[in-house]
């Protein structure tokens, strides 16, 4: 199993929890991000995720390294699924083990925030009456490149 991977098949989160477990670990946090049916009153029919796969896997591994450096004794594993996902499907799984529970929560939340910052993955929401790449929402109104 690749501990930092972009996958196209359904994610089995237990594999990632098992990967990070060690005799020194007192706590494992497992986060799964799911396709939600309703967002701000709009019904999602399905999502489509796209990634720049080799760079995305590098960035996931970088996040894992950041975690292991920042919180001693932790181990992390992360996977993100791409392609078409239905309601309740797992889009992302983050597993973190740690000797102590507080760290396991903190490091796990750090991972999802970093994924949303630096990992080249894009989400398109498909509704009954349209679709949108979610990054578009951040389009600058001034019409200028960043």
């Amino acid at each position, binding site marked *: 199993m690749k501990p930092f991977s972009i996958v196209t098949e359904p994610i089995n989160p237990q594999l990632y929890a098992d990967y990070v477990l060690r005799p020194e670990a007192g706590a494992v946090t497992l986060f799964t991000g799911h396709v939600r049916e309703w967002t701000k009153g709009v019904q999602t029919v399905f999502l489509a995720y796209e990634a720049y796969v080799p760079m995305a896997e590098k960035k996931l591994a970088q996040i894992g390294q950041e975690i292991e450096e920042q919180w001693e004794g932790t181990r992390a594993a992360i996977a993100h699924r791409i392609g078409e996902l239905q309601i309740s499907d797992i889009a992302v799984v983050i597993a973190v083990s740690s000797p102590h529970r507080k760290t396991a929560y903190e490091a796990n939340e750090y991972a999802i925030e970093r994924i949303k910052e630096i990992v080249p993955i894009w989400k398109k929401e498909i509704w009954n009456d349209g679709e949108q790449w*979610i990054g578009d929402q951040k389009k600058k109104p001034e019409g200028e490149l960043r």
Partner: protein
Amino acid sequence: MITVHYFAGIREMTGTHKENFDWAGVTVGQLKERLIQKYPQMQGNSLQFAVNEEYALQTDILSEGDAVALIPPVSGG
């Protein structure tokens, strides 16, 4: 020759996943200007650039064989 990869809304705008250009020696910022000349609709999109799978600066100079990627705002998770 350098290869430029497109994703998400930018891919849909250009109608292709990637293109090759004979632009070795130019900076990332210059590449951006040339792409906007070719695709005027690209103007106004918030974009970062990656060179060989790592985020790049506008002043980085492209070399023969480089893989460039246009990175619109990411929305994973």
